[in-house]
């Protein structure tokens, strides 16, 4: 579980597993690297400091578990501290004493408020709460149209008034919601900088009038050091109750989650994982901690897999892999399926230990596409039985895929090698030292 960061922890500890208690020197050495990892993940520099302070306190003198090196032991403590900082468990929306539930969505420009508001409404609609969306972003051109379009798509009414001022509009919207018996109201507000006094004053006024049950700050997962200032600013003015982290489907490490959480003390309630209306998920602190530290994230991987495969297909593919009859045809099929699960780079990153075992693997999808082209240019028989591919077939495949015959050659050779590795894997041996394969654990379990 700790390979990626452990690798960075370098030779300092290397073989010394389970060597009693962590010394101050052990801890400081490890924390220097942990600090870099956290900074590279965009955790705010001041937050890193206080975080490492807490870790240090817990770590010095802690016992080193038998199976871990001192470096890994420190990382384990760091991971635990991150999870704790991120808020231990998932946090649902509050249940108001009497409906409607009023949710105010606030944040910087371009952070994803409008999309999040629509996703939330969709989520509430799914719970049978008859939500109303309120378009209170009266500043950005076509912001109202954007919400109206989304509302129509999810069959949720949108309250708007192009001529009103935002606080008054919200007041009217709430009145309307009550009389029309809506169970929830989600208010989309204009993006604003936390240092923009006029707009922050307006936000305070909206907040006062709406008297919301939830005020959610939308934070872009790509946010850097600034997350701290943003969170502070909005906490003060808008009296936040929670956070939403957006654009997590990208490859940002998302250190802003730690920064915003640490500064506000408010739970991260949801994460946005795509542009689709369903792409809103509850937040899992442990997964986020792993992501920030660059560790594997098997749980997410499993979830994605469960969505991309149905049972029968899954069994069929698993059988092939187990019996090592996995051929180019299967490879092509699996590749397409993996694609549906997300960017391959991201998937590989979810494999615990992939970073350590492979160096920071950089999957060039563009080149992978060319590989796909080669395989596609083969006939089904050729894919099943590459031995058929002679010189003239090679030339045909190369021509069909816009490559050269030697490229086809290389591909065939490498696939044969890979097949051997898969055979080893199917035999219960892990051909890639350092790659921690869950479910085929090094000692726990045999297949």
């Amino acid at each position, binding site marked *: 579980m700790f390979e990626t960061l452990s690798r960075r922890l370098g030779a300092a500890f290397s073989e010394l597993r389970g060597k009693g208690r962590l010394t101050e020197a052990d801890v400081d050495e490890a924390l220097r690297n942990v600090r870099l990892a956290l900074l590279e993940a965009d955790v705010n520099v001041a937050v890193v400091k206080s975080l490492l302070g807490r870790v240090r306190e817990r770590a010095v003198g802690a016992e080193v578990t038998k199976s871990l090196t001192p470096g890994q032991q420190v990382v384990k403590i760091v991971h635990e501290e991150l999870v704790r900082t991120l808020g231990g468990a998932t946090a649902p929306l509050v249940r108001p004493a009497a409906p409607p539930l009023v949710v105010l969505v606030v944040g910087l420009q371009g952070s994803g408020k409008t999309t999040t508001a629509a996703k939330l409404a969709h989520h509430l609609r799914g719970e049978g709460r008859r939500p109303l969306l309120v378009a209170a972003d009266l500043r950005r051109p076509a*912001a109202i149209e954007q*919400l109206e379009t989304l509302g129509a798509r999810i069959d949720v009414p949108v309250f708007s008034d192009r001529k009103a001022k935002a606080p008054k509009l919200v007041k009217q919207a709430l009145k309307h919601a009550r009389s029309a018996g809506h169970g929830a109201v989600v208010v989309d507000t204009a993006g604003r900088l936390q240092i923009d006094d006029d707009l922050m004053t307006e936000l305070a006024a909206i907040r006062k009038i709406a008297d919301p049950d939830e005020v959610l700050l939308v934070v872009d997962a790509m*946010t850097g050091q600034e997350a701290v200032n943003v969170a502070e600013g909005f906490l003060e003015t808008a009296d936040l109750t929670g956070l939403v982290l957006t654009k997590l489907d990208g490859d940002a490490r998302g250190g802003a989650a730690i920064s915003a959480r640490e500064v506000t003390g408010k739970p991260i309630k949801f994460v946005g994982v795509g542009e689709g209306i369903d792409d809103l998920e509850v937040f899992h602190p442990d997964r986020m901690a792993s992501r920030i530290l660059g560790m594997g994230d098997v749980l997410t991987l*499993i979830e*994605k897999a469960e969505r991309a495969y149905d049972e029968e297909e899954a069994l069929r593919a698993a059988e092939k*892999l187990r019996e090592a009859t996995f051929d180019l045809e299967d490879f092509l099929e699996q590749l397409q399926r993996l694609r549906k699960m997300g960017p391959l780079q991201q998937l590989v990153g979810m494999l615990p230990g992939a970073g350590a075992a492979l160096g920071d693997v950089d999957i060039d*999808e563009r080149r992978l596409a060319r590989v796909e082209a080669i395989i596609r240019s083969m006939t089904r028989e050729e894919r099943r039985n590459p031995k058929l591919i002679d010189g003239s077939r090679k030339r045909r495949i190369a021509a069909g895929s816009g490559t050269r015959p030697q490229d086809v050659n290389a*591909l065939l050779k490498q696939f044969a090698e890979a097949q051997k590795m898969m055979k080893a894997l*199917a035999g219960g041996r892990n051909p890639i030292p350092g790659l921690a394969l869950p479910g085929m654990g090094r000692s726990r379990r045999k297949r």
Partner: protein
Amino acid sequence: MPTETAVLIVLLALVAVVALVLVRRRSGGAASRSQPNPTLAAAVPDLRRRLGRTRSALAQAFRRSALDEAFWEELEEALLAADVGTEVTAELLAEVRARHPATPEAARVALEELIADSMSGADRSLHLDGNPAVILVVGVNGTGKTTTIAKLAKRLGDEGHRVVLAAADTFRAAAVEQLRTWGARLEVPVVAGASGADPASVAFEALETARRERADVVVVDTAGRLQSKTNLMDELAKIKRVLERNGASVSEVLLVLDGTTGQNAVGQAEAFRAAVDVTGLVLTKLDGTAKGGAAIAIERRLGIPVKELGVGEGLDDLVPFDPRAYAEALLEP
């Protein structure tokens, strides 16, 4: 479906990919280095080495009179807090130290100079070659592409150019209306297709419109996309390809970066450059307190110049980038 099976499949399929990386590494890079080959293994690889080296501990405080470790630590934190990133921060500090400044003030001045110098020399002008010249505007979601386009159109109009805007974000809800609103305010024609239309064909149509109406600049708005989404990046490449195939000169490809973005900005620049050959950066939202220091890393590593800064939501809030002023602002306490 049993979780167990899911794990097995994902792993084995991923392992197929992963194993190929290893195969390629083992079979040695020498041959493939001299002749890049588009094969399965080649598709996976290229190991990015992170500079994981341990830094000497910089410890201490900024406004001290002495140039002690506290000062260096403070300076380091200032750079990190500006999103400069750990690697470039370390490099910059090393370079400053190599100049042996005598006082904290001298060190600060040296650092400012270093940053400005390392960024100056680049050509930061907007190129408008071709008739019409095409400016393609790209970036991840919500960075400020559409607003930047409005600002650009305003400036170009003020300079006497005839501009046509292409609403090639056919994906996001009301993206076309947003650009249309700006177009109406600026009295600049906006060419749009149906929602969900092929963005490349919208861009092409704008090109035709410009030719017909003798406009000399076409600015193409595109949908925001995360750089990790390969199919969307390919779509972007296609827009550019289609324009060029039809005789357009895409003289600028501007990547709009949100100034509040952290280290992910570097990955954005890499990916967008690979897809569409980015010619310049626009750093937005610098009217806030974010410093956009990741742009320094992008210039140093990738050599893509920052051309413009977005400093507000108004039409005039676009200013040409000046490295010296930027370096100064960066180190402002």
